């Protein structure tokens, strides 16, 4: 009886402990990321400026993502146009397909999908690369050669993410709208002029800008998370695997959570 009670007590204590540890853990995690961001920013302004390393990072994150972003953009635009026409036709309002698709793409779909594609492709790649560099002491080797690993590995990648993800987002916008136009006009017989006119009337610069601001922030966040997970990997091949998983999952969650709050802030500011 006594031992059963003490066991229940122990379980309770452990459960409370675990509950308490979750917020502590989250605060720690955010702190670690912000520290790395601070260090990356510090080294951004220090010599030497390695143009080649920046260009390589931009190629890896940006150029090499063009194909997959374009393909996903086209299909997202197409399926969205298909769904919208079928839904709006019930009310006889399929003339709004262009406008609705334009708003949805530029404000939400393009930045979120682009960032998720880049996180899955480039983010996972970066976390694995930095993680294996960490466990094989290549990151320490950089330090011993008086080269800051943060300056050499992290700063260029975060900058490349901030610059390239909005560009990819713009590509997503274009391809998505074209795909949607093709499906709506050629397959669903929506009037071409109405589609374009309605889209042009509703999608303004600020819609596109809203998406690009989000894409910029997501680009920075996903590269920072991926670098942080790789840079601090430990425990051999398994550790690198865990780091990569965390990088991808962490990026997805962060992008979607940030998206809500960013939208809230941006809409509030635009209403003013």
């Amino acid at each position, binding site marked *: 009886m006594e031992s059963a009670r003490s066991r229940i007590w122990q379980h309770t204590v452990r459960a409370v402990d675990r509950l308490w540890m979750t917020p502590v853990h989250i605060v720690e995690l955010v702190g670690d990321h912000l520290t790395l961001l601070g260090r990356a920013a510090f080294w951004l302004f220090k010599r030497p400026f390695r143009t080649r390393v920046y260009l390589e990072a931009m190629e890896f994150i940006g150029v090499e993502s063009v194909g997959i972003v374009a393909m996903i953009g086209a299909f997202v635009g197409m399926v969205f146009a298909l769904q919208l026409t079928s839904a709006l036709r019930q009310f006889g309002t399929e003339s709004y397909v262009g406008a609705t698709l334009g708003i949805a793409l530029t404000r939400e779909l393009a930045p979120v999908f682009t960032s998720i594609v880049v996180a899955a492709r480039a983010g996972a790649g970066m976390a694995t690369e930095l993680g294996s560099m960490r466990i094989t002491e*290549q990151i*320490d*080797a950089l*330090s011993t*050669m*008086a080269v*800051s690993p943060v300056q050499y590995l992290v700063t260029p990648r975060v900058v490349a993410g901030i610059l390239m993800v909005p560009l990819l987002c713009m590509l997503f916008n274009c391809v998505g709208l074209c795909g949607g136009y093709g499906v709506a006009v050629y397959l669903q017989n929506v009037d071409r002029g109405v589609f374009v006119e309605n889209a042009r009337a509703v999608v303004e610069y600020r819609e596109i800008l809203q998406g690009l601001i989000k894409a910029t922030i997501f680009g920075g966040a996903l590269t920072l998370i991926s670098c942080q997970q790789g840079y601090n990997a430990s425990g051999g091949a398994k550790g690198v695997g865990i780091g990569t998983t965390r990088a991808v999952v962490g990026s997805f969650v962060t992008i979607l959570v940030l998206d809500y709050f960013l939208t809230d802030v941006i809409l509030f500011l635009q209403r003013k």
Partner: protein
Amino acid sequence: MSDDAEKSQQFQIRIRDLHKSFGEHHVLRGIDLDIERGKINIVIGGSGQGKSVLMKHLMGLLKPDQGHIYVDGEDIVSLGEYELNPIRRKFGMLFQYAALFDSLTVEENVGFPLFEHTRKHSAEVRTEVKKRLDALGLAGTEKKYPAELSGGMRKRVGLARALILKPEILLYDEPTTGLDPVATKNVDDMIRDISKETGVTSVVISHDMASTFRIADRISMLYEGKIVVSGSPDEVLRSSHEMVRMFIEMSGAIRIQDGSVAPPVAPS
């Protein structure tokens, strides 16, 4: 010359009361260690005694919880990453598994410090790298990737990279671990030759007693987070510390004659 200045003339690195813990694990418990300028200094100790941790402190890769590390009289413990870089330029380090950049060729690996820290053109770098590789018996490997090399070759490439900026201090992390006896002797000879030719201060972390007595000018033994004995090979052989005696006898590197120990036959 004051006593302190004289000492920092003789000892390039001086460590005082160094402590480091990882969580509950108190690894370094007050290390006092002097590294003699221009000599081969070997730190021996069993696995898990904190040898690598100590080595990482020397270059500021880890920050101690307490204590001081003086390099040429300057305390590096309080320095930030940015201020550490000029100090790190004095060092070259050979990692246990070489830590070559696997996305770069041998040539790019060895030339990396030159590209980073000098304004040399790629043709000059290539010539210098080739010279260095030839000297270490690595001719013809320039365009290969680290994955295509054997463990011993990778170590030599790592050494070429560590030497290319002509460091004042060279750190070796377990240089002979995982090598066969012939390769081990080659590495020993290499360490001794480099020390003689360049006058570099060498710090070697090792648990290989045979190698240690073959090349060391000064031996320090790390045990339970402290340096328990430090001195010339003769002084260490004469030490009465229990762990030191056990290490020497167990290693089989030293022949025991009439209850007294003698160093192994010196190789030619």
